[in-house]
């Protein structure tokens, strides 16, 4: 087990109830298994996920990543 930092940006922080948190997880955990465990109520359909700043799928193992980010549709500019 290891600790993974969680980042929830923009309106996803309201859904998760935090903008920054930490979770204990295994290397074979995925963003999907983590969210199912810690926040099953969150609507994932509008979110993308990133591990250490790289877009990944919901089924990508976290492996040795240190940071998992939840990203709503972007709106910069």
């Amino acid at each position, binding site marked *: 087990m290891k600790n993974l930092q969680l*980042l929830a*940006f*923009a309106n996803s922080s309201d859904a998760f109830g935090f903008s920054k948190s930490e979770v204990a997880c295994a290397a074979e955990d995925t963003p999907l298994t983590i969210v199912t465990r810690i926040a099953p109520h969150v609507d994932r359909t509008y979110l*993308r996920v*990133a591990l250490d*700043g*790289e*877009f990944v799928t919901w089924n990508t193992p976290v492996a040795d990543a240190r940071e998992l*980010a939840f*990203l*709503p549709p*972007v*709106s*910069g*500019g």
Partner: protein
Amino acid sequence: MIIEIQFTADPIQVAAVALPSREIGAVIEFHGIVREMEGTELLEGLFYEAYESMARKVLETHLIELGELHGCAAVCFIHRTGWVPVGEASLYIRVASSHRAEALRFLGDTIDRLKLDVPIWKHNKPQS
């Protein structure tokens, strides 16, 4: 291609143009300004949030690709974070190339890519 990316919580300050070579024939600047009306809402400004470390990586990948595609020589990209009042710039892009057509295409594509997947968000703060 020379790429400069900045995020700043302060009003955007632009350095004087330093041409990267004597082959530069076009320098185009874009200022994205926060407008007062967002749909039917009257705003005092917008709040910008960025996942800065990732935004830099994603943006740099896009800029390298667009630089090769359009043959531009240099780009300076600055994005505000935090509160940006109406009338101030939230975004500044300056691109230099040999000819205007390449720079204009680069600029348009950069803004399209910014709105595609660069992790920056704005929040409306309607005037109460």
